[in-house]
């Protein structure tokens, strides 16, 4: 019995150290930067009426707007996930978890990128109950409430998927988990720019995903510690 344990322990230690050596992605120094923009007339974002939850409503001086097509100056398009969809297989999840906040009856951030098997912590910073209902299709779907004062929800996803997240209690709360197979990703900011760092030399497919419009891809080849540029343009419609 005891020797059995010992063997198991030894194997585990060996495997663990082996993984540390081999599974760590070779650190690169190439990068892809760019900007996501749109053409056409974007739909008007609508103000959200939070009056039913006064504790949230009073945290916002001006009404919060819907975020499905968030634009910025210079036709910038925010909340677009740009990631390496091919050419970067096999990177393991980082030890640091991704943090998702519910604050003022909003999801912060609106789109949360994370890696497959990466720990995900969901916090409720409000004085009201939220329920987190990620509408996953390939991963198992769940729906859990988080009353104020209860511990954070600790979970992870095992398959790559873009998962819409919803709070049923506050139906306007809408966000996304972008569960990716790669450790190289970025989300476009207010000015539409993104920056993917630490890429080793190689040939990559870079994909930009937006929640409402079809995703786009580009081929990018990086040699050495090159800094390449890739811009994405989404065609948007007013309705």
């Amino acid at each position, binding site marked *: 019995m005891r020797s059995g344990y010992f063997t198991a322990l030894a194997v585990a230690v060996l495997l663990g150290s082996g993984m540390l050596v081999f599974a760590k992605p070779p650190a690169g120094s190439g990068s892809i930067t760019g900007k996501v923009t749109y053409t056409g007339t974007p739909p008007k974002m609508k103000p959200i009426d939070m009056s039913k939850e006064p504790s949230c409503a009073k945290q916002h001086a001006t009404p919060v707007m819907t975020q499905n097509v968030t634009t910025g100056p210079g036709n910038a398009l925010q909340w677009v996930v740009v990631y390496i969809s091919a050419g970067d297989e096999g990177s393991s999840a980082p030890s640091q978890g991704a943090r998702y906040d519910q604050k003022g009856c909003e999801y912060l951030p609106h789109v949360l990128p994370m890696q497959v098997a990466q720990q995900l912590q969901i916090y409720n910073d409000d004085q009201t*109950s939220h329920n987190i*209902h990620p*509408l996953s299709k390939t991963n198992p779907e769940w729906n*859990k*409430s988080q009353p104020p*004062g209860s511990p954070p929800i600790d979970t992870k996803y095992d398959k790559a998927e873009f998962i819409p997240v919803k709070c049923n209690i506050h139906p306007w709360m809408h966000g996304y988990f972008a569960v990716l197979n790669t450790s190289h990703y970025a989300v476009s900011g207010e000015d539409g720019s993104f920056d993917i760092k630490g890429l080793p030399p190689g040939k990559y497919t870079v994909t930009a995903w937006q929640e409402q419009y079809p995703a786009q891809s580009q081929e990018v080849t990086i040699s050495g510690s090159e800094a390449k540029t890739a811009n994405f343009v989404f065609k948007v419609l007013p309705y």
Partner: protein
Amino acid sequence: MHDTSDQAAVHHHAPPKGFLWTHVFSLDHKVIGKQYYFLSLAAVVIGMVLSWIMRFHLAWAAAAIPGLQHLSQVGAPGGIITPEYYLSLLTLHGTLMVFFVLTTAPQAGFGNYFLPIQIGAEDMAFPRLNMLSFWVTFVGFVTLVSTLFISDGPPISGWTAYAPLSALGNDAGPGLGRGQILWVISIGIFCIGSLLGALNFIATTLDLRCKGMTLARMPYTVWAWFITAVLGLLAFAVLLPACVLLVLDHVGGTSFFIPGGLVLSDKLQPHSGGSTLLWQHMFWFFGHPEVYIAIIPGIGITSHILASTARKPLLGGSRVLVGCMVAIAFLSFTVWGHHMFISGMNPFSSLLFSVPTLIITIPASIISLNWIATVFGARLRFHTPGLFAIGFISVFVTGGLSGFFLAQPSLDIYLHATYFVVGHFHMVMGVAAIFGMFAGTYFWFPKMFGRMMNETMGKIHFWVTFIGVYCIFMPMHYIGLAGNVRRYSAFVDDYLIPLIPVHKFITIAAFVTGAAQLLFLFNLFWSMYRGKKAEENPWDSTTLEWTIPSPPPFDNFGGRHPIVYHDPYELGVEGAKGDYVMQDSPEKLAQS
């Protein structure tokens, strides 16, 4: 013409041997009655604990209940109850209490034990069926309670399981998938058990009465159980197919109760064409008779015990009481729509339903007035069962009167789904029926277990409970008037926040009253082993169960075939030994 002894011989069966056959799969109605009783006891304890958790949460919504996270990590993270777990507890509380307590204990429990004895029979008409009904009910109970331990918890749709919330699965909320399916199956199984039981009760009452036991001479309790059985036979037959259809909506993809074009959690549902009102109709068509299934045995037990307590038969006797109970039973099938006044039902139907609903108060009022008038001129003996019987009258009247408000569609506009309704039905159907059960327990305990229950503990139990229930349920009427909506897991509306102190008061009252119930439980089990040995007839009562030893022998009458000579309640008789004449005593009565 048939010979009674032949009839009795047909149903005679030999005493069984071995623990399994004497205590588990026994065919003896007395054992089955006790099994039902203890099943209800288990259900009522679970239901009561659930109600404490709920009450605590309502008063102190943000506070953690230490240890609750071990029952459900998802439902109570860190011991803080989530809104859906509150609703799960609420559903389970309602279902357990209505089906496995109110429907089970007074009818299937006491009825099984005492109906055959009171009519002078050796057993029920179909002992095997009787055992089957119990075990079917038991399976239903286990199925229901098992929902507590599955990963997504019990359903959150309430004991009424309104479609389409109850029919759409997990998209509508946690617990509505597997939990809801198990719930529906449990209720379906319960229906089967109740139908078999009802059938058995009717056949027993009609066919197995001893010589001289005419319909007019049957005790009030027998009448009550008989009428309840008829109600059960007709009402559960409607709930059963409703459950089947609801299960099909879950597992067969049908749309009986689901209309088209529904979007839940951003998913367009594939169903189309069904009707949500159909479920409500089916449910309440059963549900209203069910209310009387719960209370009529209580009425019977109370009348039975009141007669013994007051030393006189009920004013008007069997005739008036039975007439009123039959009227209630009949009308109970015509009033289900009063649960649906504002449900989107055709508004003309609401007017139609309000009339019989108001009329049904007439027989109920007659019964209540007769009880009160029976107390007039009585020689009241205030033993614990008598106290509970009198308490029953008080809470039944109180709870019944608030029904006048809810019977009127125009007042229901304001009061529907408020705590006024919660107060009303807890008072008239919950508390009253449970008072009936307590009265029955204290009254018949000596017969069932051969020992007396402790009177001091019994009296403390009564006073705390009696005052406690008024402290719990009267304030619910008040906050209902202020518009406090029921089935809320927390009170976040501006106008509800000032009412939270009242909820705190109710919660404290509930805990104090609950403590008295623990005393009752202690008394019950303590007396079973340590109580004073009971005589044959400790309450100077007259019906047949008091003519046999406590506890009764296997075939009830020890091979004797009782013959009945008198009406069941010859109490306060002048010149009789004691002041009463047993029902099977050949002694002649002076015509008064």
